[in-house]
């Protein structure tokens, strides 16, 4: 139930933008589509809204096939990146716009707009024009306009990207609170993986119009399905090192880091013939100083207080990021020997697929 996409594709002429995406969002979930720009996430959202037609596949909302239903009849509301507030209407008129189109009685419009304004703390702004509001207030009006419609599904198209950093964090919390309060299904598009991680019940990672992986935020973080997801989710990003399978040791896979003249052990069950090229993925927080690891010379330190990030250069010239906690003495210019627990070493095949 909720929102279900089955083998959905979209092309603009000869250019394919979304390729055979199937996904399922349970009713009441906060789903986030995330991916780099041009990955098709906004197009997918607009297809759910009905603003783009679907080249192939079906879209259903609460069990009803809406693939060919016009936007207004899909019972979805959308919050645009630009907010799309009408400059010639007041906040009240903007929020009640959809109701006034349907010739809803004035008193009912008033009740519903005031209710939405109460939820969003906009009561004292109802008579103002959008141009008299701050960015965050405009954002809330745009959300209010969606709430007033009482849709089955809320769609958000990069709604926070026009706000400054501080306000973005604040609005993120408000959105999470709103979702708890209303409990409706929400689909949220962003290129910011931090927004995705903090807001989502379920993240859908997209790249080049294809669904890469779907799952709970921490599932994706701990268990990325491929190299792209591993590198995209998490900040600072995962470090990738080239390696070669060297056979088994105590039931663990031994991987040679040739360019670094070192090796790592990884908890991988897949049998790999000796010499197979692989990519090793190491999260910054999983790297720690060990005896006989690979050497890295620290070139820069970012101290954030509780956490520090070391930017270090490896023997082959590659840069990696290492997270340390509670460290107080500087390591700048020093060479450290690094390693990781076999359980934390992620291994990807040459084609980017995860080896488990």
């Amino acid at each position, binding site marked *: 139930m909720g929102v279900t996409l089955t083998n959905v594709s979209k092309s603009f002429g000869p250019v394919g933008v979304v390729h055979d995406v199937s996904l399922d969002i349970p009713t009441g979930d906060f789903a986030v589509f995330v991916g780099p720009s041009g990955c098709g996430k906004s197009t997918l959202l607009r297809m759910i809204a009905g*603003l783009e037609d679907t080249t192939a596949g079906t879209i259903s909302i609460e069990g009803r096939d809406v693939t060919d239903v016009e936007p207004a009849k899909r019972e979805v*509301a*959308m919050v645009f990146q630009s907010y*799309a507030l*009408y400059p010639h209407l007041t906040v009240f008129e903007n929020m009640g716009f*959809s109701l006034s*189109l349907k010739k809803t009685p004035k008193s009912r419009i008033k009740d519903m707009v005031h209710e939405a304004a109460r939820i969003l703390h906009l009561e004292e702004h109802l008579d103002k024009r959008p141009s008299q509001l701050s960015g965050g207030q405009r954002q809330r009006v745009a959300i209010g306009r969606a709430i007033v419609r009482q849709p089955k599904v809320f769609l958000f198209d990069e709604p926070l990207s026009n706000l400054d950093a501080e306000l973005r964090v604040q609005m993120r919390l408000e959105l999470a609170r709103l979702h708890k309060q209303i409990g409706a299904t929400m689909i949220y598009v962003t290129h910011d993986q931090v927004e995705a991680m903090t807001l989502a019940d379920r993240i859908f990672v997209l790249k080049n119009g294809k669904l890469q992986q779907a799952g709970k935020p921490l599932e994706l973080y701990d268990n990325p399905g491929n190299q792209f997801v591993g590198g995209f989710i998490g900040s600072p990003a995962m470090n990738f090192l080239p390696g070669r399978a060297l056979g088994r040791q105590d039931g663990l896979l031994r991987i040679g880091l040739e360019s670094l003249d070192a090796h790592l052990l990884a908890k991988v069950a897949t049998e790999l013939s000796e010499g197979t090229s692989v990519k090793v993925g190491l999260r910054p927080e999983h790297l720690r100083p060990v005896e006989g690891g690979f050497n890295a010379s620290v070139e820069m330190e970012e101290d954030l207080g509780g956490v520090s990030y070391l930017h270090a250069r490896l023997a082959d010239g590659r840069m990696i990021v290492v997270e340390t906690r509670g460290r107080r003495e500087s390591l700048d210019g020093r060479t450290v020997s690094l390693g990781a627990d076999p359980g934390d070493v992620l291994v990807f095949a040459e084609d980017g697929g995860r080896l488990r």
Partner: protein
Amino acid sequence: MAMLTNRRKEVAVAASLVAPFVLIFALVFLYPTIRLVQLSFTDSPLIGAGNWIGLDNFKRLLSDRLFLTSLKNNGYFILLTVIPTTALALGIALMVTRLRGKLQALALAIFFLPYILPVPVVTHIWTWMLDFQFGVLQPVITFFTGKPVAVFKNPYWVMPAIAAVTIWWTNGFNVLLFIAGLRNIPRDYYEAAQLDGATRWQLFARVTWPLLWPVTALVLTLQLILQLKLFDQVYLLSSGGPFNSSYVLLLMVYREAFQLNHGGYASAIALVLFVIIAALSVLQFQLLRVGGRR
């Protein structure tokens, strides 16, 4: 101190940049205008001195039948052109914006083409098209009236015909203004309204029309000014006839000044027209702005 010298320097720079324009403006607009006002209180010929006669020229205007006819004709022409051409341009712009790519450029070029033609060419084209004997449009007129009409020689047809020619000639520019206005309306507004269930009419009435109102007010005001200055088309198509039924103020200014050598009287008429244009356009623009703000 430094602030003060800076400020003084800025003023000097600003003044030197504005000076060329101010000088030219004073020479070719301000001075002639002042002279025109002076002339309108004299009985002087076009060139040479005259006597100060106070408000006599203006008193004479009030009893001049041709002046009153011209004033009335100017008003009639405004009714025939300003709102119709604005409405037509808006309609065409709405249709043209629905086209895409090259087709849109082609449509725009076609509608804009008449605007780049010089007036004599325009009037020539229409004289041919409406020619009593050979005009390609006479069958159309015959269809509606039962007989061909010599439109520029008929007192009832002449003003509407000149209005039609004028609209055909100048409409392209208004279409362009409206298209620019339409392109300035973000697509999100339409998509949001579409999601809210707006019908096509509601999209126009609730989104396009209010957001396009500033452009509409501009077009209406520009048209009002332009059409009050009517001269060329009348001069070339009907010379004010028949029976002065297409006589307008500028034609009268031309006649008094250059044919009858009444510089003072012509100046008085021109001054009246100037005041009418200034007053009406300011009034209209203010009214439209208030209307747009609701």
